[in-house]
């Protein structure tokens, strides 16, 4: 059975305070992503922040759930610079 899922619909239910222009995560070296074979960040990120594009990886972190999976999964390449958003910004769970 294949199920069509729109992650955006899921993220839409959440509350965020986005720190405009100050992403708390960054891809360190875009060239490294070009040679990465599995690009696991593009599948494992629960908010689908990463997308495989033109052989590389693009990312937007507005929907980030701050779980840390991308950082852990990219350990061999260590190509993700990951820190928490500034105090008060980012995901704001109503229920958690």
């Amino acid at each position, binding site marked *: 059975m294949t199920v069509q899922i729109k992650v955006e619909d899921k993220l839409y239910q959440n509350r965020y305070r986005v720190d405009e222009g100050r992403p708390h995560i960054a891809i360190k070296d875009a060239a490294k992503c070009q040679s990465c074979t599995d690009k696991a960040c593009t599948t494992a990120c629960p908010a689908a922040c990463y997308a495989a594009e033109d052989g590389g990886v693009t990312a937007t972190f507005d929907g980030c759930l701050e779980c840390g*999976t991308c950082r852990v999964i990219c350990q061999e390449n260590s190509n993700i610079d990951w820190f928490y958003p500034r105090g008060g910004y980012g995901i704001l769970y*109503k229920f*958690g």
Partner: protein
Amino acid sequence: MTEKFDAIVVGAGPSGNAAAYTMAKAGLKVLQIERGEYPGSKNVQGAILYADALEKIIPDFREDAPLERHIIEQRLWMLDDQSYMGTHYRSDKFNEERPNRYTIIRAQIDKWFSKKVKEAGALVICETTVTDLLKDAAGKVIGLRTDRENGDIFADVVVLCDGVNSLLAQRAGFRAELKPEHVALAVKEMHFLPRDVIDERFNVKGEEGVVIEIAGTVTSGMVGTAFIYTNGESLAVGIGCLVSDFKKTGETPYALLERFKNHPSIAPLLKGSEVKEYAAHLIPEGGYKAIPKVYGDGWMICGDAGQFVNALHREGSNMAMTTGRLAAETVVALKAAGKPMTDANLATYRRSLEESFVIKDLKKYKDLPEFLHKNTQFFSDYPNLLSKAAETWFRVDGIDKKTKEGQMVRGFVKARGWRGLLGDAVKLARAWR
């Protein structure tokens, strides 16, 4: 801020709140720093509250804590694509005056606990991210840096309760990065339904609740489990698998969650619900062997940051509260004796952990994480085999029972081999012990 605190606690989850409360209650000058808008806004849990751990900190918590339902029935389900096989344990004994386990909504319980921390006399600051620990020339932790202006704050001891990622401990060199095979990524949704619908669907009344823990092909061969917990007017529905397995399979967590929700045994339970939140979180599942050193000169680590989770029994928040309390009691005792917060003195914390259920339980299952990581047949072959066997057993189709038994046994032998079956049994028994 130039004033100095007896202790600074980083994070306002169960371990941080337990630590801050215990120290403040004992009269220490405590500062607690939380990066969320309010305590709980960054935190995710299933969530089940184990009364015992909280009772040891706030004995009368039942009077005003936001509890959802007390659990009277535990279901363990094994799913294949069409079926589930289950064992249920339900007892009226769990309808007791002081129930043992409750479902809770994490953001609410953290907020409640934080109020108690403030009442106990601690200073709680939210919307502030701690960026680094401050050390003196000898390497002793003397305070921390926040993202506020003039954000350096000093204390005799810093208690790190900053959760599974604990970037502070990593940056300070107290702990290595999490290994992909030591953490599970769990995604979860909150499904709202009227109270009476939940009561009927789950065969409960009043404040009674049900917990369903699920394993099987629903994780697509990855090491992981799914769950449904009944809250008062909502269901927590989630699924989690090892990050290393997500990497290996290329599965997406949200597709996994959707497949789970659409399973023929699950969908009827969720029918008509309104989803109000989608959350994700890492769960430390490396067990005993993944626990880092949890104390040093001027610092301690509690809760998820120290990998204190019993993955098999789904216990984490109780370990968080217990480690937070034990760390705090160590600090309080040293303070009373006028002793400094040195590595040697704080070692008492580790010793009290050893004497508690925390280390005892984690030690018991020390080989289980590695075992499951290497033996994924328990999440793929066996659910299918058990389901097939049950179907063969229950279907009445004119085939005699002896032939049916033969079919069942041959199914297992064909998939795993006699040697494989025996090996799995021995390995499982060993890892369990």
